[in-house]
């Protein structure tokens, strides 16, 4: 045996392959390729939703492999296994071996004939591998490379294709974003990951991605167009499409898409990018004009200036309660006042954001201020409360000891301080009955003297904060957070929600930010002294918001450029005109008129149409083409919106300099638009199937057009553009010649004529 080896020299093959790979990922390369691996992911069992806890059950997940999936070298880069492309089929263990005379991306077509951990697949999807991943795993093209095809390998491919990242950058970014500590675990099938934490992270992301990838396959199979997928809701190629609309399809809008583009749009539904974390800070009862530009709210204005402002954001009800219901599920279910409700009010498994998040493997928390410390074993703050006081209005949980709690200023904790009605989740019976409901209901503090998650003092610069006699002073009302903490300590209360051993803390929000345990969707509710509800406390609320935002800004997730984080500052309702918009038409309270904002072609509001009785409508259901009977809730008292209020978005993508701030959008939006937007951001619905959007958030122009004959509430609208729900993507362009002015109650926005090309999608990330 000759032990003498030749001198080391660079691999001529590696150099050749690298040179052709640099040309792109969609083309075939002058190199053979041999691959082996596993098609793997996660098997997700959705929760069972019911009005009772006994009939409910949580979601479960498991690492999984796909048997019977068709794997091919995608020689033409169209994301499909075409005739003539080398292919094979995965074994019962999900494994495959495949060779090709030319190196090309890999595709795994997971059809309904395949199985996921032995379970049937009801809707097909496609996983992919970029050629760069194969090259990175290749020691020599003539030897087999181990390459697994997973939802996460598809995300890496999308990042390479659409973000201009190298393979190693895409892997590092995704690993960091989802919290995988060992990047070599990222692209393993979860069944092969031995690190429990990495496996959990990969499984969770796999569930999320699989949902989006299934949606992408639907886009292709239906022949969806670019216009539809980018969120131009006037663009669908349907018979009812009105070509005279100025915001009609342009460019490639009527082109259909293949899998790679469809997958890009599936992570950017209706032009709304996927966000990892959304924080909604909800304030109360102020018109936009009372906040935007007001010296009493300097911090909120600074955030709106740094981020972006929606100039025409409408509440959907008056008073508060219908708005919170709408924020939880895009409908008020007939509720028109703050009167006592049965608890929970919305029963019968009605679609809502909370269940929708659970249904796709995402998480949610509602953080409430001045939350009463709850002894272990009880849930008096949340579902199952025994001190629920319906007789006195049904809005608050009473506690016999609450009068003993006094702030430093001697003011007692008020029985009406914490408004349960401001929790948009608690009213949905099938959300409250979920096993995770109690642990999702958490505390938040914006107390004076707070520190951020790193222990640094949060400065507050409002000039009147030393004037204790000024009604606008943030110290002019009680501050109970420390007193509540002391009460908990004195009474040995160490756990404030049932079944959770975590020590009670007055500011679980801060603790969660420190640990990275915040949810994907976080709804943050101040008490009624911190939410501008009580008169004269705008500066106090401004201070409270500063505390909350400062904590988020100091967190690791906010400062991580791979994570997308958005802060929304908004209000439940305005305080001015009784106007509403955007797919909402219950009658005005007492005036016998339907509350439909109808505009002339010039943008002026015209009279409303008559009130409507309850009716049954046939709408384009989840199938998108088959009319399905849908009964909207009756409105015995009528309702109306409460004018324009503040809606601002500030993202870490702006803070980190990835996109510019200082944006504005004068399109018309409402709580329903926001709920639809959240469904897009979190991938909860299918833009091609209107019925998959919950409740009134499905009332887009497309939906109205498709269902005009059975939607009499829109019969009197001169311009349905103004009456439709739209995602907050600023794709809609006002017709040429139309002067776009703000309605009463709004701050002074730029007046635009025709398409507002200088405005932006406030949520954009690129």
């Amino acid at each position, binding site marked *: *045996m000759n032990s003498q080896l030749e001198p*080391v020299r660079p691999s001529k093959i590696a150099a050749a392959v690298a040179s052709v790979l640099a040309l792109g990922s969609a083309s075939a390369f002058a190199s053979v390729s*041999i691959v082996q691996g596993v098609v793997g992911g996660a098997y997700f069992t959705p929760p069972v939703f019911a009005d009772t806890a006994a009939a409910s059950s949580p979601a479960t997940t498991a690492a999984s492999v796909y048997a019977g999936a068709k794997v091919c070298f995608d020689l033409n880069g169209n994301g499909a296994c075409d005739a003539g492309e080398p292919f094979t089929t995965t074994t019962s263990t999900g494994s495959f071996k495949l060779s090709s005379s030319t190196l090309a991306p890999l595709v795994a077509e997971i059809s309904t004939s395949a199985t996921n951990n032995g379970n049937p697949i009801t809707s097909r999807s496609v996983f992919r591998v970029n050629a760069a991943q194969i090259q990175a795993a290749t020691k020599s093209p003539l030897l087999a490379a181990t390459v697994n095809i997973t939802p996460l390998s598809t995300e890496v491919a999308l990042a390479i294709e659409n973000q201009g990242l190298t393979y190693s950058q895409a892997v590092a970014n995704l690993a960091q974003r989802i919290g995988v500590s060992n990047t070599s675990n990222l692209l393993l099938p979860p069944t092969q990951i031995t690190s429990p934490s990495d496996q959990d992270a990969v499984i969770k992301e796999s569930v999320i991605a699989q949902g989006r990838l299934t949606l992408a396959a639907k886009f292709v199979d239906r022949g969806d167009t670019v216009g539809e997928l980018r969120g131009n809701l006037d663009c669908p190629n349907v018979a009812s499409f009105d070509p005279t609309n100025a915001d009609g399809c342009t460019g490639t809008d009527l082109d259909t898409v293949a899998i790679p583009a469809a997958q890009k749009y599936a992570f950017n539904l209706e032009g709304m990018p996927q966000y990892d974390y959304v924080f909604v800070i909800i304030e109360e009862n102020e018109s936009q004009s009372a906040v935007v530009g007001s010296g009493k709210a300097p911090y909120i204005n600074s955030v709106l200036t740094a981020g972006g402002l929606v100039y025409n954001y409408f509440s959907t009800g008056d008073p508060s309660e219908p708005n919170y219901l709408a924020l939880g599920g895009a409908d008020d279910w007939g509720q028109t006042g703050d009167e006592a409700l049965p608890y929970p009010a919305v029963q019968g498994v009605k679609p809502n954001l909370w269940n929708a998040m659970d249904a796709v493997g995402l998480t949610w928390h509602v953080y409430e201020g001045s939350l009463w410390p709850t002894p272990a074993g009880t849930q008096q703050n949340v579902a199952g409360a025994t001190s629920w006081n319906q007789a006195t209005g049904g809005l608050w949980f009473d506690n016999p000891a609450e009068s003993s709690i006094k702030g430093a200023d001697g003011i007692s904790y008020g029985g009406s301080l914490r408004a349960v009605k401001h929790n948009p989740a608690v009213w949905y019976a099938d959300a409250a009955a979920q096993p995770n409901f109690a642990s999702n209901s958490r505390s938040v503090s914006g107390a004076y003297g707070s520190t951020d998650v790193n222990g640094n003092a949060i400065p507050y610069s409002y000039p009147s904060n030393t004037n204790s006699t000024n009604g606008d002073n943030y110290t002019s009302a009680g501050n109970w957070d420390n007193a509540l903490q002391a009460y908990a300590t004195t009474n040995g209360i160490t756990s404030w929600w049932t079944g959770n051993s975590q020590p009670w803390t007055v500011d679980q929000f801060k603790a969660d930010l420190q640990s990275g345990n915040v949810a994907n969707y976080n709804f943050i509710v101040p008490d009624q002294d911190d939410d501008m509800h009580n008169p004269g406390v705008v500066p106090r609320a401004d201070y409270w918001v500063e505390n909350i935002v400062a904590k988020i800004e100091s967190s690791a997730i906010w400062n991580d450029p791979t994570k997308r984080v958005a802060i929304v500052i908004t209000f439940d309702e305005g305080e001015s005109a009784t106007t509403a918009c955007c797919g909402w038409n219950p009658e005005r309270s007492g005036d016998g008129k339907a509350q439909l904002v109808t505009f002339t072609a010039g943008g002026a509001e015209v009279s409303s149409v008559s009130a409507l009785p309850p009716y049954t409508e046939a709408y384009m259901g989840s199938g998108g083409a088959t009319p399905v009977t849908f009964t909207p809730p009756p409105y015995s008292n009528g309702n109306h919106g409460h004018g324009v209020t503040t809606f601002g978005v500030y993202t870490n993508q702006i803070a980190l300099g990835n996109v510019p701030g200082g944006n504005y959008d004068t399109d018309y939006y409402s709580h329903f638009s926001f709920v639809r937007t959240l469904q897009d951001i979190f991938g909860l619905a299918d833009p091609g199937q209107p019925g998959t959007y919950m409740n009134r958030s499905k009332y887009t122009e497309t939906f109205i057009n498709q269902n005009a004959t059975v939607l009499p509430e829109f019969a009197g609208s001169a311009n349905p553009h103004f009456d439709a729900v739209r995602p907050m993507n600023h794709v809609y362009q006002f017709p040429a010649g139309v002067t776009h002015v703000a309605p009463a109650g709004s701050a002074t926005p730029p007046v635009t004529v025709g398409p507002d090309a200088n405005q932006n999608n406030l949520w954009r990330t690129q």
Partner: protein
Amino acid sequence: MNGLVKTVVVVALIGSSTVASASVFDFSYVFADGQQVTGDFTGTTTNGGQSVTNIGNIQVQLNGIAFAPVGGVGNPTLQANAWVPSTAAFSDTAPVTIYANGALNNFIISDVDAATSASPDYEFGYINDSTNGIYQVVAANFLQSDSFSKAEGNSTQLALDSPGVASSWTLTEVTAVPLPSTLALLASGVGLFGLRGYRRRAA
């Protein structure tokens, strides 16, 4: 002229004396999924008969289908290249040794110089590289795979194992044959005798 011929004869005799033997060897490898590579080559036994060098005249069949152009037209020349763990690459200068103990193999047989080409039509590789953690036996007929794939996938033209103990590998010496150098020596000797006879007759 006479001196040059004598010199050639001497060198040939020395070369012949240093070669243990030259033979035809049959080999086979049965993959875990039942697929099989068979073939033969000529070579020289070394290492007490445990290995073969000077590989030549290679023939390979994957599942009975010869490494040859589709339709059987033409005869490709197959060559062997050594896999060099220290460079994690195939070499076109390092000597190729094929072992009876498959766990010692690090070679590839293909229709290209595997050190410089990434586009063979056929290949049979047998790698045990502890340095880079590569343990695989691979046989692929890329021409057949593309045509097969249209109808039934290419699994029948790709065989791939990650062997631990290569119990399914066989390397058998079939028959000893004269090596080319030996044949040259023989021819030279015959010629020398002929030349001497011719000179005698001429004298």
